[in-house]
């Protein structure tokens, strides 16, 4: 599964015999030459521009967007603090930014928890189907995942909006008399993100469960473990790497989520991405936008480092 494979950056390469075949009589030049088209595109349209973001974050904003080439720490200051308009010496925390930051982290975390609660049993269910059926269930998980994000968010909106499926149903059944306001709340964002990112939890957890030897479960039950003990002491420790991978795969796009809060959260319930976009639109404060984008990147990198260290720790435990 494509999504789970990119975690496996250490995957086996360099067959030893191929190494022997090529090492002595070939230089590595041709490998760089073959990689050149990909590297050019990536440096030009992905990695290189990231450096420019770093530079822009320490420049002075121009009046109608863009920057003035003058070093300034203001953007980074503004990410966290604000000065009083009337008394520039009075510095307070910038709560409007911090609340967005907090909402992003909190919603991303909650999304991960919901995806874990639903995804873990689902992955188990799929991995315990007979081999022929398993592919079909996997396909059913995969299809929504490869469907356009906007379309899926639109579908969720149709379910939870005031005239949507849930409210119409409840009102027709006379359970409620006026619609429950779900749209434009944090709840809506949460539901939307969990819906959209759930497959990212299921697939890596499934991959880990697929590798789990059922004889270990048999051994557990044979040694008088209850269902709960088998789950806690055998299944969970052994699928933990897949579970952590899934959590990271859900957390990263959740915290950087843009479409879902924009459509379901409305203007007020912004997340970090929306705040960043605002600086390039109405805000016209590109350095602040750049600084906010880098803040987001730092959070993601911290999560990735945490992931790599946990996985590394797991491997140490397996091999002592």
């Amino acid at each position, binding site marked *: 599964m494509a999504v789970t494979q990119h975690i496996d950056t250490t995957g086996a390469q360099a067959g030893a015999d191929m190494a022997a075949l090529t090492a002595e009589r070939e230089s590595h030049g041709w490998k760089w030459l073959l990689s050149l088209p990909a590297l050019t595109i990536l440096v030009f349209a992905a990695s290189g521009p990231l450096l420019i973001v770093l530079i822009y974050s320490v420049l002075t904003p121009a009046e109608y967007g863009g920057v003035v080439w003058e070093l300034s720490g203001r953007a980074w200051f503004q990410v966290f603090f604000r000065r009083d308009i009337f008394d520039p010496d009075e510095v307070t925390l910038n709560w409007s930014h911090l609340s967005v930051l907090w909402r992003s982290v909190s919603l991303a975390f909650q999304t991960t928890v919901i995806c874990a609660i639903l995804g873990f049993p689902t992955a188990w269910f799929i991995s315990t189907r007979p081999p022929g059926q398993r592919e079909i269930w996997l396909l059913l998980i995969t299809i929504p995942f490869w469907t356009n994000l906007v379309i899926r968010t639109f579908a969720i909106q149709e379910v939870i909006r005031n005239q949507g499926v849930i409210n119409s149903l409840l009102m027709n059944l006379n359970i409620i008399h006026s619609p429950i306001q779900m749209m434009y709340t944090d709840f809506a964002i949460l539901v939307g993100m969990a819906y959209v990112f759930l497959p990212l939890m299921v697939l890596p957890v499934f991959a880990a469960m697929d590798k789990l030897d059922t004889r270990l479960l048999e051994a557990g039950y044979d040694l008088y473990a209850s269902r709960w003990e088998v789950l806690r002491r055998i299944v969970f420790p052994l699928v933990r790497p897949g579970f952590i991978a899934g959590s990271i795969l859900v957390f990263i796009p959740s915290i950087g989520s843009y479409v879902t809060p924009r459509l379901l959260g409305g203007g007020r319930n912004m997340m970090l991405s929306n705040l960043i976009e605002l600086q390039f639109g109405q805000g016209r404060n590109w350095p602040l936008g750049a600084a906010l984008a880098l803040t987001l990147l730092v959070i993601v990198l911290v999560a990735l480092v945490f992931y790599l260290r946990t996985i590394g720790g797991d491997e140490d435990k*397996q091999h002592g």
Partner: protein
Amino acid sequence: MADRRDGPGSGDNEIEIKRLSKVFGQGDAAFRALDDVSLGIRRGEFFTLLGPSGCGKTTLLRLIAGFEQPSAGEVIINGRQVAGLGPNARPVNTVFQNYALFPHMTVADNIGFGLRMLGKPAAEIRETTERMLALVRMEAMAARKPSEISGGQQQRVALARALAPQPRVLLLDEPLSALDLKLRKEMQSELKRLQNETGITFVFVTHDQHEALTMSDRIAVMSGGRILQSGRPTEIYNHPAERFVADFIGDTNFLDVELVAVNGATAEVRLPGGGTRRATLPEGLAPDPGSHVTIVIRPEHASVTEEAADFEGTVEDAVFFGTDTHLNLRLSDAARFTLRRQNTGAGDGAMPEGSRVGVRVADGGIQVLRN
């Protein structure tokens, strides 16, 4: 659940299998892995299920362990009906073919796992784990992970883990098949030693006839989901009741002969040379005199003789095996016959090709087959 307790009065059987069947799949794809099997395994014995792969021996073991549930029939362990119960509700433990050691736990934690699940106090767990480590001579490896010890050592840990909760029955699913020959021989005597020391009933699954013959108190030979014959190793070897059993265990000569007379458990059969000899009949079989039956003669139960030959044959070739030599003969009616000569002297026991030799079968060396 019908709680049928046969009670301790049901004899010395630790395990009672009654009309047990297991069908995998449904409809056209259905496969009957176990077909109406009944069996009693006695308390404290080393019992072996022997047969080729796909004969149902592992399925039977898994039904006893509780990993699979029967399609029909009963499994009674220590007088208690257990069909339908999970493995964690049965007083049996298993040594798996691939050992199935928990890769994320140390050797000691693996061994103590069952006791922990039973809620034993920590001191008892520690004490038993140490005793088990000593029993399988793995004290030095207690803190290692399964991936850090050799296959033979993993095998010992698997044994210790299964023995630690002191089960009534230990089930062993081809536990030696992954080991090399030398290690296998060592583990065979190790297993026998452990069984003697613990007094636990062992149910051992193997496809290796030598393993079965050397280790078991009793053997059940299985094929096609059925038990063809069960008994002590000497019974199974010397008096195979079915062609499959005779063929699967040891080298065998099959001859089609005429039955001259029936005399209780024995019969008189006419050998190719024209004379009659006494043969053993399988239990419960009473064929009519004059009918044709198949008899079995083991190669080592026949010898070359100068006088009083039962029949004669022409030497086709001789194969030297070190301790003995096989003479392959062609009999008058084009049947083939192999006999084994013990190499007691310095010679190779061979006879010149094409020479005619007389063959004498030892007393009690002729067994009539069912069918």
